[in-house]
C-alpha cells in the first residue's frame, strides 16, 4: 500500500475532490472512482492510445499519469464530448464514415482528433494520418478514421 493524496480536479466541467492512492493512474481514477468507463485501457504501457484524454487541452495517455499529480487540472474524457442529445461533430463523422467497428479504440481516437482540430487549422490528410499514428485500431485499417477527421477539419465545424 502506498500513501494517499487529496486532489481537486475538474473532469468534463465538473469539480471533484478525492483522496487517492498515490500510485493510482489517471485512467483508473476516471474509470473506478468517477465511473467514467469510456476511457479504455488497451495496454497500460503507453503504446496503444486507447486511454487518451485531454489534460489541460493536450491529448495524453491517462495510463501514464498519476491522479495524485493532478490537483487543479482539467480533464476531458469521451463522456465530455457530446452535449446530451447532440453528438460532437467528430462523433457524428465517425459514425458516418465507418470509423469504428468494435468501438474499443474509438474514445482515444476521438480525443486525439479533438487536439488535432484545436491545434491545426485545415489539417490535411497526411497531417491527420501522422497525428493519429500513436493510436492503434485493429478493426478498420484507419481509412474511415482518417476520412472522418478530414471531413470535420474541412467543415471547420469543430468546437
Amino acid at each position, binding site marked *: *500500500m502506498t500513501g494517499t493524496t487529496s486532489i481537486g480536479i475538474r473532469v468534463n466541467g465538473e469539480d471533484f475532490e478525492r483522496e487517492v*492512492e498515490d*500510485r*493510482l493512474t489517471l485512467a483508473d481514477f476516471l*474509470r473506478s472512482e468517477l465511473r*467514467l*468507463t*469510456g*476511457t*479504455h*485501457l*488497451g*495496454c*497500460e*504501457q503507453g*503504446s*496503444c492510445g*486507447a486511454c487518451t484524454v485531454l489534460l489541460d487541452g493536450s491529448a495524453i495517455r491517462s495510463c501514464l499519469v498519476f491522479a495524485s499529480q493532478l490537483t487543479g487540472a482539467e480533464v476531458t*474524457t*469521451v*463522456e465530455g*464530448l*457530446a452535449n446530451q442529445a447532440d*453528438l460532437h461533430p467528430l*462523433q457524428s463523422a*465517425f*459514425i458516418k464514415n*465507418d470509423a*469504428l*467497428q*468494435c*468501438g*474499443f*479504440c*474509438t*474514445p482515444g481516437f*476521438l480525443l486525439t482528433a479533438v487536439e488535432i482540430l484545436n491545434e491545426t487549422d485545415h489539417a490535411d490528410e497526411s497531417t491527420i*494520418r*501522422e497525428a*493519429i*499514428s*500513436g*493510436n*492503434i*485500431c*485493429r*478493426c*478498420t*485499417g*484507419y*481509412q*474511415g*478514421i*482518417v476520412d472522418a477527421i478530414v471531413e470535420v477539419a474541412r467543415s471547420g465545424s469543430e468546437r
Partner: protein
Amino acid sequence: MKAEEFVRGQGQYLADLPDQDCLHVAFVRSPHAHARVGEIRAPESSALIAICTGADLLADISPFRVIAPGHLDYDWYPLAHDRVLFVGEPVAAVVAETPYIAEDLAAEVEVEYDPLDAVTTLDESITGGTVLHAELENNVLFNLPVNEGATADTFAAAHLVVEQEFEYPRQNALPLETRGVLARFDPRDQRYTVFTSTQMPHLIRSALSQILNVNEDDIRVIKPDVGGGFGLKGQLFPEEVVLPALARKLGRPLKWIEDRRESLMAGGHAHEERLHLSAAFDADGNLLATKSLLDGDAGAHSTFPFGAGLDPLTGALNIFGAYRHKASEFTARAFATNKAPAVSYRGVGQIQSVFAVERLMDIAADQLKLDPAELRKLNLYENSEFPVTSPGGNEFDTGSYRETLEIALDRADYTGLRREQETAREEGRLYGIGLATFNEVSGVSIFGYDGASIRIGPDGQVRAFISTGSSGQGHEKVYGRLVAEALGISPELVRVIEGDTDFCPVGAGTYASRSMVTTGNLLESAARELRDKILMIGGLLLSPDDLIPMENAANELRIADGVISLVREPTATVTFEAVAQLAHMKNFDFPLPQELVEAGLECTHYEQHKTVYSNSSAVAAVEIDPDTAQFSIRRCVIIGDCGRIFDSSTVDAQLVGGAAMGLGCALFEHLAYDSNGQILTTSLLDYLVPVSTDIPQIEIGHLETPSTFSANGTKGMGEGGTMAMPAVLANAVADALMDKGRLLNKIPLSEENIFQLLQIS
C-alpha cells in the same frame, strides 16, 4: 444504435461492468518454459483474501480433455499442477480487494521451480528428446494424413515438379481489448453467472459444465460488448474456469482483466507453421497434382474447442483449393512445444497456405517461362465449372476465381505496372509485382449447429435472438435491418440480442466468417415464417370470413412499412402493431382461431450449414530500398467475392480492415522466443501492429456470385483481405529481388529477412 453508444464511450466492455461488490484476481505465472513446480508459499499479508494453486483447484474441478477429431487427448488443468509448460502459464490465483493489491501480492508469491529442458522449435519437438505430456508417447498432438500415396504416379510422370519449404511465424491476433472474466455465484439458486470477453458463449458454457461438474443450466455465460476478437477469443482459457470456481468457493464475485503483457505472453498465439509443398505440372503449365506437409507449432496445449490441429488442418483441407487439379495428398500435423498454446487468429490455417501456394505458383511460372498471371488463369476454376469437388474432397459451391483475378489485373493496370517495372529495372531500382488468388473456407459449422429466434411482443416490438455474437462486425445494425426487411417493418422496432446463454439459442458462436451465412439465413427464414403468420391474422382482420392459408399468405397479402393490406383490395389496411396485439391479447369481438394463437408470434430455426467458399484476388506493386531493405507499397488492389452482399458498407469495412490486419501479419507481427523458451515480445514496442502511417491505399472491389449452398446466397467475408496480404506482398517482394527472390520462403517480410536475401551473391 451501437455505433452511437460506442462514440459516446457508453459501450459496456468487460472491464466496464459494475464491479463494486467484486474482489479482484491476479495470476502468478511461470517465468520458466518448462519446470517442475515445487512448493508455493503465499505472502504473509492481511490483504491476501485467498490464494488458489493448481492442487487447491483440483478439489473443485474435473480435468478436461479436448476431444476434437484426430487429436491425441490428455488431461488439461487450468492451473499447472505438477509442471509448467510455457512462460506465462498460470500457477496460482491470488484474490484481494483491488486489482493493484492483487498484483502486488501475486508478485510476492514464492514458487519453487526445478527447470527442465525446453522444447522451443518444431524440430526439437519432432525429434522428441523431451516429451511434454506424460500421457502421450511423443510430442504429436495431432496427425491426419489424407490420400497417402495418391499422387506418386502423377509426380513421377510430370513434366515439371516444383518443391519448396515455407515458414510462417507465430503471431497474436491482438484485439485491442484484452480478455477478462467477471464471475458470480448465487447460493440461492446455485447458479454461476460468468461474464467473459468471448466469441462463443455456449461452447464456454458446455466446457464449464463439464469442468465444474454442474448442469449447463446452472451456468449463465454472458458476452458483453467485445473490443475485438479476430479469432483469439474463440476458445476456452484457464481464467474462464478459475474465476467461477473460486467465486463459488469464496462466496464473492470475482473480476480479472488481462493486461497486455499477459496477453502477449499467454493469451493465445497462432499461425506458426512450416509447410513443405510440391506441385506437378505438364508442359503446358496445367497443374496435375499437389502434395503438402503442414506442421503446426501448437505450443504447450490443445485448446478447446478446436484443438492443436486447427491451423495446419484448416490450411491442408483446402490447400491449392482455387486451382483445378486431379490428385492431392496432404498431411496436417501439430506438435507440442514449450510456448503459449496456439489458438485461432483471422485467416486461420489459410493465411499460411495461401502464402506458400502462391509463392510456389510464382516459382512454377518462372520455371515454365510463363507470366504468373497466365499460369494462374490457366489453372483457376472457371465460373461455369461449379459446383466442383476438389481432389482434397471439398465441395465448392460457386465462385469467380478467374474473373476476380482478371478484374484485379485490369484495375491495377497490370501491363502498365510491368512497363513501369521494366523502366525501374533499367534504372537499377528493385521494383516488383505480386499476385495472389485463392478461395476461402467460410461459414464452417463444426462443434454445433446454430440457432436464431424471433419473438414479437404484444406491442409489436421485435426481438431477434442469435447464437453468434458481434465483436465489431456490426450484428445489431445488419441483422436489425435484415429482420425488419423480411418482416416488412421499420428497423427501429427490432432489437438484436446475442451473447447470453439464458436467452439465445444454442450455437457455436462467431468464427470462420460464419455469422451472416448461418444466423443471417436463419433470421431471414424465421422472419419470413412470422411475416406469413402476421399476414394471415391481418387478412382475417381485413376480411373476417376468409382465413387465407399460410402458403397463400405472401401472394394474397402485402406488408410494407408495417402496414398490411389485401392485394385484391389495397385501400383497406391494418397495422403490424394491431396484429401483434391481437395475436397476444384476446379481443372479445374478434377471438382468433386456435391455429393462429398457437406458437404466438415466436419462431426459432436451427440448422447445420454447409461450408461455403468465398474467393479473392490481389495485385500489389512494391519497391525495395536496397540500402534499408525496407519496401514501399506502390499499388495494392483486392477484389473479393463473398456471394450476395447484404450490407455493402459492412462488407467494405471488413475487407479493408482485414487487409490492414493482413499487412501487419505480412510485415511485422512476430512473437519471438529465445532458445530457452523465454518470450521476447511482451509489449507493443516489441510486437508491432500497423498504425495509420503504415497503411497504403488499398483499392477494393467486389463481385457477387451467390452461393448455391446458402439460402440467402451469402458467403463469409471477414478474412479474405487478411489472407491476401502475406501472399501478394511476398510475391511482389520476391519479384523485386529477381533471382534472389526465388529463395523468399518466409514471413514476416521484415527488413532483416529482406536484407538477408539482398546479401545473397
